[in-house]
């Protein structure tokens, strides 16, 4: 079943997080307020993007980045309209006009900029098409999404939404299995990261770093969205099990009671 929904309820950051964690391949189609965007992924990495009337071609990207003049751009479109971006890229490299790195860097900047634009879209519908791959005649990149997600999460300012995401600061954080490398964090984010340990509650981390509830929630939200940390119960935290939970305090009788419940539910 294709993923679909409304941006008002499910943000671009959350969608990127899902694509990243599920390592999805396909295209996210977003119908925004006045234009449509196509963002393609391969195995959870950003591969290609285009928005609105832009055709997302290499010539257009280089022209927008001032690497090609208007005349050069027009000439390329008119004379080489039929060749693929890969062929055009090779021509430019062989002519010594641009290096491969420059081409890839310009494409990455263009695609990332489209996503930045999407972060400002709060209205619109999305759908994820697993069988829609990036166009073959376009050059694909392989861009990790973590930094883009963290950047998007930084834009979340609404206190109410942050409170929904992280209702209790009495819980702790632990790192997920995802390596914390090549991630661009701010100084404040690093200060929080340095105290992440299942023994420290978020409240303690905030106090140590002299952050208020909003500041710590904002940072933790970004780390959560990027799939770098998860919320856990603090190690060593004593939460007394309510004496009302079981009618008996005897462990064996408690097990017997649960087994009786299992037997009864099975027989329903």
């Amino acid at each position, binding site marked *: *079943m294709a993923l679909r929904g409304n941006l008002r309820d499910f943000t671009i950051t959350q969608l990127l997080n899902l694509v990243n964690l599920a390592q999805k391949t396909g295209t996210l189609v977003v119908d925004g307020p006045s234009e449509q965007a196509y963002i393609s992924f391969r195995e959870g990495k950003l591969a290609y993007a285009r928005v609105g009337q832009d055709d997302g071609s290499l010539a257009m990207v280089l022209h927008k980045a001032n690497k090609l003049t208007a005349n050069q751009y027009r000439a390329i479109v008119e004379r080489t309209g039929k060749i693929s971006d890969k062929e055009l890229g090779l021509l430019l490299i062989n002519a010594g006009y641009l290096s491969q790195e420059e081409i890839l860097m310009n494409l990455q900047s263009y695609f990332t900029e489209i996503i930045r634009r999407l972060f400002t879209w709060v209205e619109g519908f999305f759908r994820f098409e697993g069988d829609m791959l990036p166009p073959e005649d376009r050059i694909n990149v392989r861009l990790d999404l973590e930094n883009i997600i963290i950047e998007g999460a930084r834009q979340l300012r609404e206190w109410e939404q942050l409170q929904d995401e992280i*209702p209790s600061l009495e819980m702790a954080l632990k790192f997920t299995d995802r390596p914390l490398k090549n991630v661009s964090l701010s100084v404040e984010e690093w200060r929080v990261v340095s105290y992440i340990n299942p023994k420290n509650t978020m409240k303690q981390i905030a106090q140590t770093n002299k952050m208020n509830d909003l500041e710590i929630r904002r940072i933790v939200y970004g780390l959560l969205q990027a799939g770098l940390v998860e919320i856990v119960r603090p190690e060593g935290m004593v939460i007394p099990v*309510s004496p009302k939970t079981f009618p008996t305090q005897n462990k064996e009788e408690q*097990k017997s009671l649960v087994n009786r*419940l299992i037997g009864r539910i099975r027989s329903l």
Partner: protein
Amino acid sequence: MQTVKMVVTGPFSAGKTEFIQSVSEIDVVSTERKISSAAERSVKESTTVAMDFGRITVDEDLVLYLFGTPGQKRFDFMWEILSEGMLGFIVMVDSTRPETFREARSILETFRAYAPTPYVVAANKQDREDAWDLEDMRHALRLDSKVKFLPCVATDKATVKSVLLELLYSILAEMESGG
């Protein structure tokens, strides 16, 4: 007579009342009211304002009570009261309404903070064509791979039983591990 309880929680219109109704031997004692907000009314006509209450008699000495929490946020003062003394809890999520996933996650985190009891998450309405896949939902809900995330149709007794059993197995496993 000994009694134990489990709590069924989740966002507004996730299917908590139906879930309890499917297995309760009594008509669910439900404190449902006509919905006042137009936005919420477009989803369903009435909602639980205090709690649902279902019962399963195990034998002559033991009764299991199922409590459903009110889904609307303005009644969340009831959650802590209902969670007191629970054996475990079930978080119901409507698989067809991604707009409720954030709230479901928030409810889950809130209940986890209340009590160290085992829990499972049930993806309701998995029989519907517009239901999200379980794996996508797991990621959207940020559920760890160790958390039991189960397909469910709240009106189908078999799937409801399976969710309850999985929760009981988790409770038993935790007791056996000394938790």
